[in-house]
């Protein structure tokens, strides 16, 4: 299954890509293999070069222990099939690794705890004893969006609920909207 970029190889966007000294793609493992191959194809078409990414310097980054691509199927097999690891392009990647903790180098226990998550999701259970646990949704809202935060739209932008399922997102959103202070108004805009 392949998808095609809608970029015309003779266009301003194509010219931008042609002039790139480097392309960086973060969280690449969360991408569906078809999307990465789509980018590879359009780069090759623009550069008229069959080398990976048309010979443009390309750095992908990420952690395969983290979020896998969204799939319609459930379980490790569809996840593996949708992963960039199943791309014919993957063997051409030169893999470089960072091992040493950096962000939480002062707290090695916490680092070890985070590392444990996602290490081997079939056989291992990780105790979430290093995290604060909140039982109910109202409590969570009070914790994440206390009144001081709700009154400041900028602060609100820096926080978010993460939900594993799309259907609970609407429920969260409704509860949050109910808490907002002030008058409701609709802004209409035109998008091209």
């Amino acid at each position, binding site marked *: *299954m392949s*998808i*095609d*970029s*809608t*970029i015309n190889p003779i266009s*301003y*966007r194509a*010219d*931008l*890509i042609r*002039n*790139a*000294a*480097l*392309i*960086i*793609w*973060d*969280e*690449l493992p*969360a*991408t*569906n293999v*078809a*999307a990465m191959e*789509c*980018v590879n194809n*359009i780069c090759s078409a623009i550069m008229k070069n069959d*080398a*990976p990414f048309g*010979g443009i*310097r390309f*750095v*992908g*980054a*990420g*952690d395969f*222990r*983290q979020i896998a691509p*969204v*799939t*319609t199927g459930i379980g490790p097999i*569809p996840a593996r*099939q*949708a992963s960039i690891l199943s791309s014919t392009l993957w063997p*051409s*990647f*030169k*893999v*470089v*690794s*960072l*091992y*040493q*903790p*950096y*962000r939480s180098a002062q707290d090695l226990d916490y680092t070890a705890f*985070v*590392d444990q998550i996602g290490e081997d999701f079939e056989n291992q259970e990780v105790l979430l004893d290093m995290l604060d646990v909140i039982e109910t949704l109202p409590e969570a809202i009070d914790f994440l969006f206390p009144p001081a935060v709700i009154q400041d739209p900028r602060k609100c932008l820096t926080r978010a609920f993460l939900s594993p399922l799309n259907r609970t997102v609407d429920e969260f959103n409704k509860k949050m909207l109910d808490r907002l202070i002030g008058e409701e108004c609709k802004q209409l805009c035109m998008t091209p």
Partner: protein
Amino acid sequence: MLANSPPWCVFGAVISAYNPLLTVVPSDKAIRQFTGGSNTERPSASLLMRYFHRPPEALFDGQTYIDYFQNFLLYGHTPGTLLKENDYLEVPIPGGIQHKVRPRQKGVKVARIQIVSPTAGEVFYLQSLLNKRPARSFEELRTIDGILYSSFNEAALRFGLFSDQNEGHYALSEAISCFCTPAQLRFLFARIVLEGYPAVPLWDEFGLPLAQDLTGTLMAGGPERAKNLALERISSYLSDASRSLSDFGLPEPVLQTPEVIMELCRYEHRRGELHQGAMSCIQSMTPEQSTVFSTIQDHFALGETDPPEVCNPIFLEGRPGRGKTFLLKALAAHIRGSGRIVLIVASSALAATLYEGGRTAHNLFRIPITEAGMHH
């Protein structure tokens, strides 16, 4: 003697007398083709090529183009025949006939180079140099005090044939002090250059005022790009007179499309700051991070403009908090600080917001969102 030969070119000769003979050394099409740069491009060999290939003996070193044809006679040489005393052999010109060269024994000959109008630009400066300097190649002619100049115009100036302070300078200065608009200045500049004043020093001095109105526009950005746009407009004035920028030794503008310009403009005014930022990041890296950083740099030959012939992609892996983002940010700032383009994308909008100028891959590469993209 030719009817159109002006008297000043036969200085020292009695004009009314039958002697001396006057030779017009052509600065003909052969010279006009000099931009090709190769001395061997025309094997049929114009007189100028013959001059460049004059015999290698020291006797010929100090002879200018004119001296050479005044003082020596050229005869066809049949290979294998013996040379007389005082005969010298030309440096062979590939595909051309070799001549023997003999000092003129009797009579006087006056040579001059065919007149080239100052409006001819580079050819004019070439002719001026040929008048004054002995040389054996175009490159040697353009080399003054050991420095090879890219244009005859510049070389002639360095050689001191023309004064830097010319009327063109005064005309432009005066126009600026009279508050002429940059657009008017560009037109004036084109006219001055077409009149034959050295273009390069004028451009070096007035490039910025000539581009002043273009620095502020969205399409322009920094001064360098504005000068680029100014050159583009000057080029169109010159082309009205069937001339081009290169005729006058001026640089060709680098044409860029809007998205490239927008991207470059975002960072152009902060290049120093980005470079500083990248440097301090690089200094604060752990040994592991800086090893990975230089691995990436070397793998991609990032110091070069073009990527290496074989340029496999890199995957930077690491668990949370190992400094992937930190390293990539330093990499991006480093390249942007050198005035080049880095496109940063991420799989999700949230990850994209971590980077300056980051977007989703779907947005930048216009990946259609289809249900099918998730199926296999």
